[in-house]
């Protein structure tokens, strides 16, 4: 069957090798018959039975040829590829059912037209180059779109020579495979790589700023080291929370839980968090995590979490028209008496500046004797920026 396919595929429009063999065999038989009629002495190379056998062979060859052609037609129809036979100058001579479906036009609009012209401007050159390669017996290959500009199909196109009986290219075969899905996946991958590179750079810039700010306000190298590590871990925890939401969003409760987790041993029953389900965007998650980390660290050193009886409550609510405003409150109580910090360190600067600046909100950080209070409100839309980016 393999030999059939190869023969049949080579030139369905015209004479195949098998057809030629039959024609030649028939001609030889006719010549023998003629010789027998004119010269009885010439003699048949064989008996009548031989003749019967020869004719039977010819008929069988014919039957096999028909079956082979029918099979070839089914084979070509079964292929999802767009298969076209071109003349050496690149004119379309024949196309498979896949080719017809890809063209989306009646055969008569395609057959007789230059194949390269069916590709869009920039790809026409690639098509011509592929044709030139095929004419010299090599394989031409390119990838190009076709169809509507807003939703093109992408094709992996291979052009090769169909050899004539003498082995020289007689016609060209253009097979285009639909690789739209692969193309989309590659584009998506390239986009993701670019996005990741952007994020890594931004993260490095953020870490750089945290490091520099930590060093600016540190009293000693050891203190700077400890503070920086804590901040880096807070950012790392915030990343974990974000990755769970495919870096698109995170629930506020999860963000609060992530920040407080390192303190949780000391917190049994002394920490509470409550509020409605609120999704936050990546930027808000990072900023809020750093802020809450500063508050928690401060509380563990000097505030409510530094004494066994102290408590911390984090509460939040949505308010305003259409719940467009997020209000969050950090409240410490039952800890040692609070003394306001002498100078604004990293934490208080971050809280006072970052949130207001980044999200257009308002923030209040107060140090009443009974416990530190931080309250902020910010437009929910600003805190949720980035959530829709993924869709």
């Amino acid at each position, binding site marked *: 069957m393999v030999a059939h396919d190869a023969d049949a595929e080579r030139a369905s429009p015209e004479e195949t090798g098998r057809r030629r063999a039959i024609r030649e065999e028939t001609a030889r038989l006719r010549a023998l018959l003629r010789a027998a009629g004119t010269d009885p002495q010439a003699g048949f190379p064989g008996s009548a039975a031989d003749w019967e056998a020869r004719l039977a062979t010819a008929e069988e060859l014919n039957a096999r040829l028909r079956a082979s052609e029918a099979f070839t037609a089914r084979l070509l129809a079964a292929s999802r590829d767009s298969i076209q036979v071109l003349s050496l100058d690149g004119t379309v001579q024949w196309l498979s059912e896949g080719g017809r479906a890809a063209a989306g036009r009646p055969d008569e609009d395609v057959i007789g037209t230059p194949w390269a012209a069916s590709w869009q401007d920039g790809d026409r050159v690639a098509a011509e180059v592929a044709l030139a390669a095929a004419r010299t017996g090599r394989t031409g290959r390119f990838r190009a779109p076709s169809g509507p500009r807003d939703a093109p199909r992408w094709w992996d196109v291979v052009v090769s020579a169909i050899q004539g009986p003498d082995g020289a290219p007689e016609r060209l075969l253009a097979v285009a495979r639909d690789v739209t899905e692969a193309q989309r996946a590659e584009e998506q991958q390239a986009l993701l790589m670019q996005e990741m590179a*952007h994020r890594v*750079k931004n993260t490095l*810039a953020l870490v750089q*700023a945290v490091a520099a700010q930590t060093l600016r306000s540190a009293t000693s190298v050891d203190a700077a080291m400890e503070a920086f590590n804590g901040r880096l871990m807070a950012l790392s925890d915030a990343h974990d929370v974000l990755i769970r939401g495919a870096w698109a969003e995170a629930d506020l409760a999860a963000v609060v839980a992530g920040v407080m987790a390192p303190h949780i041993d000391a917190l049994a029953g002394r920490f509470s968090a409550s509020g409605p389900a609120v999704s936050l965007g990546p*930027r808000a998650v990072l900023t809020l995590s750093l802020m809450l980390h500063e508050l928690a660290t401060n509380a563990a050193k000097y505030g409510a979490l530094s004494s066994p009886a102290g408590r911390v409550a984090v509460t939040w609510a949505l308010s305003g028209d259409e719940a467009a405003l997020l209000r969050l409150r950090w409240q410490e109580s039952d800890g040692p008496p609070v003394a306001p910090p002498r100078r604004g360190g990293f934490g208080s600067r*971050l809280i006072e*500046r970052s949130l207001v*600046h*980044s999200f257009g909100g308002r923030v209040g950080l107060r140090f009443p004797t009974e416990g530190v209070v931080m309250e902020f409100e910010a437009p929910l839309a600003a805190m949720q*920026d980035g959530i829709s980016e993924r869709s």
Partner: protein
Amino acid sequence: MTSDPDRTPSDAQHGGPSPACDAAPVVLLVEDDGLLLMEAADTLAEAGFTVLEAPHADQALAVLESRPDVELLMTDVDMPLGSMNGFALARLVSRRWPRIPVLVVSGMGSPGPHDMPPGARFIPKPYAPSALVRTLHDTVRRAA
């Protein structure tokens, strides 16, 4: 950099305001991330600049309209809160205030062919603070 005629050893040493300017050059920083802005503002203030801040393009334009003494604009690209990104702001500023040099800072690889206005400089994030200060001093001096 050694061939840069604008950079003299004395500048590099004191790192202070350019001798060409009497007062501290006024730079407008446009950056949506509060922490990055805080650090950049500290860096530039220490280097002798007077720093004005804006979290997004619209606020930056308001500052430019009210402060004719702004000598330099340094802007981030992605600023979701404003009505335009940093590239659009850079182009607008270079048209409306052609005397103000523009620096665009971003974590994205490099700007597209039509993103930047002519003459503007692109600085990738993260940047070395000392290089930023040097670039800003050079830029102010060239514009003077």
